[in-house]
């Protein structure tokens, strides 16, 4: 009995993970191919589109929506810029934490930790007020700044754990072998540090792409409104009566970048998540 359980346990566990993770994704994809009218009338229940198959209609409709396209553009721009800036600042800080002795190191890590746990919504009221005074309300920088603040802790945390593992003495070894310090840095340290920086960048991008609280509170038009906020405003505010299939198509489009990143970099992301948060 226990032998059989052992043999079957793994495949069963794997199956459980796959179903758990992919079922809702399959569902939203399926929904996005359902005919909009059939969904509104509730004539097409069940998991698969079957008789209410609408082809690419919903995708076309979502993509034809000017606001939706703007939101995708906003999200890409804002997320990429904040990722870049955040990773640059985090790299500097993490290098210092991993390599240098200085006063206040503990304080830096404590601040990072405190901010990682900060209740984002508590900032809504002061930032809303402040951004309107400063003219940052409904602009790209108005979102980039908070995204940076809230991704820096994760980036610093991940990167400093990563940098601590790098055999820095190799840099000197290369210099002894006749490399200039720039060459030593460029040819030895950069390739070793790149995977960590990269992981931090991906995690940062995920956060920025996912953010909703800042997205709905600090924007009011398509000027800066990112995709999660745009999806929630897609049609009116009645949460019980939405054009489900159209929304599903929009949601699938918004998920494509994430899936692409995950497909290409899954190994790096897992390594980054497991080394950054808990280091042994």
């Amino acid at each position, binding site marked *: 009995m226990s032998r059989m359980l052992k043999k079957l346990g793994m495949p069963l566990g794997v199956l459980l993970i796959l179903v758990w993770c992919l079922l809702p994704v399959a569902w939203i994809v399926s929904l996005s191919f359902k005919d909009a009218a059939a969904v509104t009338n509730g004539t097409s229940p069940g998991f698969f589109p079957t008789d209410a198959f609408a082809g690419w209609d919903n995708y076309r409709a979502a993509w034809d929506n000017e606001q939706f396209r703007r939101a995708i553009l906003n999200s890409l721009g804002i997320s990429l810029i904040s990722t870049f800036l955040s990773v640059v600042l985090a790299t500097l800080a993490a290098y210092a934490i991993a390599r240098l*002795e200085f006063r206040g190191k503990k304080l830096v890590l404590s601040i990072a930790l405190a901010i990682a746990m900060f209740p984002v919504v508590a900032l809504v*009221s002061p930032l809303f007020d402040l951004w309107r005074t400063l003219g940052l309300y409904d602009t790209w920088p108005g979102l980039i700044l908070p995204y940076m603040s809230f991704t820096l802790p994760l980036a610093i945390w991940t990167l400093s754990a990563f940098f601590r593992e790098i055999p820095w003495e190799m840099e000197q070894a290369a210099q002894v072998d006749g490399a200039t310090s720039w060459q030593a840095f460029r040819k030895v340290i950069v390739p070793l540090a790149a995977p960590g920086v990269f992981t931090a960048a991906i995690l940062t991008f*995920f956060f920025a792409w996912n953010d909703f*609280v800042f997205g709905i509170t600090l924007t009011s038009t398509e000027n800066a409104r990112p995709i999660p906020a745009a999806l929630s405003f897609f049609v009116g505010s009645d949460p019980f009566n939405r054009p489900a299939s159209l929304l599903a198509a929009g949601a699938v489009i918004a998920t494509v970048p994430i899936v692409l990143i995950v497909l290409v970099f*899954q190994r790096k992301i897992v390594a980054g998540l497991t080394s950054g948060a808990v280091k042994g």
Partner: protein
Amino acid sequence: MSTAVVQTDRAKAENRLGQRLVAPAIIVMLVVTAFPILRALYLSFYNYSLAAPEDREFVGLSNYLTALTDQLLWRDIAITVMYMVVTVAIELVIGFVFAMVMHRVVFARGVIRTSILIPYGIITVVSGFAWQFAFTYQNGFINNWLPFVGEKFNWFGETTPAVVAIMVSEIWKTTPFMSLLLLAGLAQVSEDMIEAAQVDGASWWQRLWRVILPNMRAAIMVAVLFRALDAYRIFDNIFVMTGGAVGTESISFLTYRQVIEQFQLGMGSALSVLLFLSVLLVAFLIVKLFKVDLAQARGEG
């Protein structure tokens, strides 16, 4: 650093460089958090509505008194704590099973990694939509698949089922994060120790409870701390799935509503301060209760 007593020029320079390198990150982190929360503290003593900004007046602690004596706040806090406790408990179990599978499995590792990262990376709003539509009786499939609910059962009609639906979305989305943190902890448990226990005749169950779990305690505690504080801030799923209706509103949602829908910046700021303090309290309780040692978990202990 045996010569730490002697402050050499080199050590001084290193100290300066280190502080310069961390300074930009610290400034950016504090500009958007510390400064606004102090401003919230200031605004919370005023009666300040964006609908009538000229009428701003100092009212002392009256916003706090109003909030703290209102049933609504306490109901929302109770429901928030419920979201936190239930989701984290369930995620801990499922996340641990996932971590065990990922740790032991020898085939399809790439596929598993990829699929577990999809809920992690997906937008919470999208997860909320997917689950909301899945639970609706008009279009969803859940009612058909679950044997114990009627075909026309309305999940969003009253508090308990609506809270369950929100929790399902929350759990689905965040279990991968939990399982990855636990996987990191699992990797730290020495295989030799597990084998030794096996040789000594310990059953699978005993090995789990006596060897594996105690040895990954730090990782579990960190995962619980992170996820609990994250769950306490629950907002996106509620916004998307119920809009806070039928008593599903969390403390974060209440604060949001005061500021954005009702433009009550004074009251909203008071709630922000209370939210901030309650997160501190929850963090403090978890750290004290479970004796989380973050430095030890990072291998700095």
